[in-house]
């Protein structure tokens, strides 16, 4: 009896720790690993991804339109992560440039941090809690991140209307930098040659 009761408390202790131990703060961000970088100037494949609110999203629209595509760590959805900041300004870009043909979408890259696929309902709730106005796409096995050579979240790529990646930004990118690339793509003033920018 004595050993049973003691074992009970040991188990309670261990289970409680497993349930509520805080995650390491470093889990909120992720430094670029040593893998290959985004394939700027490469043409993407026309993948179709499910959106968390239902339906699908084609990377290549018809008729073709430029696309601002982000990889974000959407979960946990109440944390002030760099991805959360990026989402706010992605919506700002959509608000400002949609009339000129720009599409905006985000692919969930939470698994790059947590190393497990998130539950669909968690992503669905996050899309509402972040008040997203653009599609949030599911990447069940991380294949999209792998295909784009995404090394960190957030990462944002700008794709022209022919499917060529013309610019990529790793890490949180202020809206003015996003706009600089978009303006250039949409016919704004010429600037530097598009390139990978690591913030």
């Amino acid at each position: 009896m004595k050993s049973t009761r003691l074992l009970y408390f040991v188990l309670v202790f261990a289970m409680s720790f497993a349930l509520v131990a805080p995650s390491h703060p470093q889990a909120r961000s992720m430094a670029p690993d040593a893998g290959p970088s985004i394939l700027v100037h490469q043409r993407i494949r026309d993948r179709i991804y499910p959106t968390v609110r239902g339906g699908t999203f084609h990377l290549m629209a018809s008729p073709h339109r430029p696309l601002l595509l982000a990889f974000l760590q959407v979960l946990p959805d109440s944390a002030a992560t760099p991805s959360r900041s990026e989402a706010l300004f992605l919506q700002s870009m959509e608000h400002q440039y949609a009339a000129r043909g720009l599409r905006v979408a985000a692919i969930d890259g939470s698994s790059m941090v947590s190393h497990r696929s998130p539950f669909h309902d968690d992503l669905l709730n996050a899309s509402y809690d972040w008040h997203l106005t653009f599609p949030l796409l599911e990447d069940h096995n991380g294949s999209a991140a792998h295909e784009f050579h995404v090394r960190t979240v957030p990462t944002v790529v700008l794709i022209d209307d022919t499917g060529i990646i013309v610019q990529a930004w790793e890490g949180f990118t202020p809206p003015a930098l996003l706009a600089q690339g978009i303006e250039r793509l949409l016919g704004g003033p010429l600037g530097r040659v598009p390139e990978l920018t690591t913030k």
Partner: protein
Amino acid sequence: MMRFTYLLAVCATCAWAILAGGKPAFATSYYVNCSASSNGMGTQANPWNTLNSPNAHTFVPGDNLYFMRGTTCSGEVKPLGSGSSSAPITVNAYGSGAQPIVNGGTTYSADFYLLNQSYWTIENIAFLQGIYHGIDIEASGNTSVNGITITNVTATGATYGSQIRGDSGEINVNADGTDSATISNVTIQGAIVGNSSVSEGIYVNAGNTQSMTGAKGSNISISLSNVSNVYGDGILVVDASNVTLNSNVITQSGKCPSCSNTNSTPGPIWVWNTTNAVMSWNESYNNTSWGAVDGGGMDVDYYNQNVTAEYNYLHDNKGYCVSVFGSQNTTTVNSVIRFNVCINNNNNAAAQSQGDFYLNTWDGGSLNGVQIYNNTSYWDSTLASNQEFLDNGATFTGSNPSFYKNNLVYSPLQYPGMINAASPITLSNNLYYSSASSPEYWFGYNGTWWSSFSAYQSGSGQDLNSMVANPLLGDPGYDVDNVWPTSQYQPQAGSPAIGAAVNVCNGISGCSMGGNDFLGDPLPSSLWIGAIQEN
């Protein structure tokens, strides 16, 4: 021995629970589903279906109150109790889908209300209508409220027709301004606010409004929030220390159609009676005022000390880009305005004289230290009484340095009014330019006016290291609304702005220019004039 071992195990478990998780062992989760057919016990399997039940309950630290997603509750959430610093009470959503809605309609003062209650976290709920407020957090008497966190909420559609500041607000965190009540450690993040006829979008009054020496709340943070279409102010923080207003978007504030009180004209994002505040990376545009003043992009109002406005994009506002004010026999101390971009402001035809950078004092107020540097302006105000930098006869006291340096002003005007300043403000290393043919620039200092830059330099002794020259920007033309300034405001190769700026902190103890330019890039060793540096 058996009893001792048992107690030891119990104590160890409890102690660990408190130390590791901080949550008491008996915290409870309660559930509300207003679509449920009957009112239950508040469990997930048998939830409450009316707000009367949670409103009659006193919550304890660590408790959770969950609302079912996809449902709407009519009425006001008015729970009792307080959390603790290590175990706040959380109001959140459960289930999946759209955020749960709490709708106070036109019957209830607020959708969510707390009075003298601390350590509450409210997240992932949509608050709709209510008369005066979506969320109303109040402190009165001598109460010190602590630990209010509001995350990922919407607060829209409150119905009151505001007539004056403070009579209503979508998110209202308010200490009674006449006593020693305070509210501290407030975090508002990711809120979508507006489309309502209330005074403020987000209002935090953290202490006593009666004087600069009254009680102040501390640690107020508002970020990642979007405020649009409100009758009065967008985001306003008063009576507080350690304030950060970071990465917010504010538009269409000051929309009241019938307001006439000229003593409480609106601003999109500003602070009053604060100490140590930073407003950064915000976008403020298309804001207005019903009066002849305000309705600008951002305001460092009076009673403030150590306020910095940096990296903001402020455009298409009826009033100034950034103002600094002093009033009520007090001194506004150490205001820093840097690395902002101002475009197409000051277009209120009914306004009194203003500028992109506008200094003013009245009623015995004064300024002690105003640093304005490395800003970029597209100055196209056609009102003859406006100048890009306007010191409207402000009174200065104290010995803190006041200057206007490294600023880039681009204008399409034939007769651009550039400067109207006076001592003790000093000016240097600025670049002025008009793209009009044969422009006539106007510069004023200490009440004397010059239409020749060289005559202004020699007559005033100011701007000796400045220039009138084409900055060779990428494309400085004014763009349509809502377009961020980008390379068109960046000096291109051969620009005289390149390397022509000065380290404004030379000779000033404790001064720092900050680490980045408007685009977030590190400052180069050879500084450029304007907000955007080499990258």
